[in-house]
C-alpha cells in the first residue's frame, strides 16, 4: 500500500465513521450555537454593544467548541488498540496522524465555518467583516485541529477534559490574537493582509510540525 492510498483509506474510513455517528458530530456544533445564544441573554439585547463583541464571541466560542470536539479525535482508536496498530504499521505514523487531523477538520471545522458565518449574517454584521471572519476561520480552524491534536495525543487515556483545555487554550491564543486583529482592521476598512499572512505562516508551521509532535507523543504514550 502506498502512502497516499493509506492516507486516503484512513480519511475515508474516518469520514464514514463520523457520518455514522452523526450525533457526536453535531454535539460540538450545537454547543457552539447555544453558547452564542447565551451572550445576548447575559449582556442584554443592546445591539450596539453586541455589534462590537459579536465577532469576538464567535471566535472564542469556536475555540471552546474545538477543545470539546478534539477530545474524540484519538479516543476510540486508543481504547480499542487501533493506535497501537497504527504505530506498528509499515507506514509513516505522521501521515496517518495527518489523515486523522484532516478528517477531524472536515467533520468539525468545515461545518463550524458555515454555521459561524451564517450566524454572523443573522447578527447583521457588515458583509466585509463577515468575509474577513470567513477567511480567518478558514485559515484558523485547521490550526486549531493541528495544535489540538498534539495536546490530545499527550493527554490521551487520562481522565478529565479539563487538563486538555488547560494545555490547548494557551497555544490557541496567537491564532485568536491575529484573527481578531484582522477582523478589527476589516471593520475599520483597513488592510488585513499582514494579519492574514501571519495566520497563514502559523498554519504552515503547524502543518509541518504538529503531525510530527503528535506522532512522537503517541509513541511516548504507548511505550
Amino acid at each position, binding site marked *: 500500500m502506498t502512502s497516499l492510498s493509506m492516507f486516503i483509506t484512513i480519511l475515508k474510513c474516518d469520514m464514514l465513521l463520523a457520518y455514522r455517528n452523526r450525533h457526536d458530530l453535531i454535539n460540538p456544533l450545537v454547543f457552539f450555537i447555544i453558547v452564542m445564544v447565551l451572550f445576548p441573554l447575559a449582556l442584554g439585547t443592546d445591539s450596539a454593544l453586541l455589534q462590537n463583541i459579536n465577532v469576538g464571541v464567535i471566535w472564542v466560542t469556536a475555540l471552546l467548541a474545538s477543545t470539546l470536539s478534539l477530545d474524540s479525535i484519538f479516543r476510540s482508536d486508543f481504547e480499542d488498540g487501533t493506535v497501537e496498530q497504527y504505530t506498528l504499521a509499515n507506514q509513516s505514523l505522521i501521515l496517518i496522524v495527518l489523515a486523522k487531523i484532516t478528517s477531524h477538520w472536515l467533520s468539525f471545522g468545515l461545518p463550524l465555518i458555515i454555521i459561524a458565518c451564517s450566524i454572523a449574517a443573522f447578527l447583521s454584521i457588515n458583509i466585509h467583516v463577515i468575509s474577513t471572519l470567513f477567511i480567518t476561520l478558514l485559515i484558523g480552524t485547521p490550526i486549531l485541529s493541528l495544535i489540538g491534536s498534539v495536546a490530545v495525543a499527550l493527554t490521551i487515556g487520562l481522565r478529565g477534559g479539563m487538563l486538555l483545555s488547560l494545555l490547548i487554550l*494557551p*497555544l490557541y491564543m496567537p491564532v485568536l490574537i491575529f484573527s481578531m486583529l484582522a477582523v478589527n482592521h476589516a471593520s475599520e476598512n483597513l488592510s488585513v493582509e499582514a494579519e492574514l499572512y501571519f495566520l497563514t505562516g502559523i498554519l504552515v508551521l503547524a502543518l509541518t510540525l504538529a503531525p510530527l509532535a503528535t506522532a512522537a507523543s503517541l509513541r511516548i504514550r504507548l511505550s
Partner: protein
Amino acid sequence: MGFALICFISGLIGGLVLAPADYQQGDSFRIIYIHVPAAWMSLFIYTFMAINAAILLIWRVKISEIIIRSSAILGASFTFLALATGSIWGKPMWGTWWVWDARLTSELILLFLYLGFIALQSAFEDRRIAAKTGAVLVLVGVVNIPIIKYSVEWWSTLHQPASISKLDAPSIHIDMLIPLLLMAIACKAYFFSVMLIRCRREILAYESNTAWVKETLIRNGDHT
C-alpha cells in the same frame, strides 16, 4: 546558594541605595531590579527546559527529565514575579495595573504554559512518561519565546523597548546597569542552586529502592 546571596545583597544595595534616581520616573524605577531579572529568568528557564526536553527526546538522557521537572515550578514563580512586579510598576507609571499589551499577554501565555506543564506532570502515575509528554509540550510551546522577546519591537505598545540588551551601547547609565547585572546573576545562581537541590531530592526519591541511595542516606544521617 552563598554566591547567589552575595550577588543578591550587593545588587539590592547597589540598586536601591547607590544608583541615581531616574530623571523621569524618580525612585519608583527601582523595581526594575526585581522585574527585569525575573522576566529574563522566565525566558531563560523556559529555553533551558526546552533544550533539556530536546536532549531527553533525542538522546534519552535520564537526568534531563529530572531537570525539566525541577525547573518548571521555579520558572512559573519567576514568570509570576515578573508579571506581579510589572503590574505594581505599571500602576504609578502607566496609571493601570494591566493592559492587553503584546508583551504582557505573551508573558501571561508563558505562565499558562508553565502551569499546563505542571498540571500534566501531576496527571500521570508513571514519572518517565510524564516527563516525556511534558518535554513534547515544552517544545511545542517554544514558539512563544521569540514572540515574547521581540514583542516590544514588532508591535509598538505601552511596554517600553529593551534598554539593556544593546551591549555595545546600553541606553542605561552604568551605575544603574551594574546592580541590575548583579541581580540577574543572583537570580541565575539562585535558580541553579535550588534546581540542583530539587534534582537531588528527585533522584533520591526516584531511586529510593536501590542500594546506593540507602548507603548515602545512612552515611549522611537521615536529615533528608
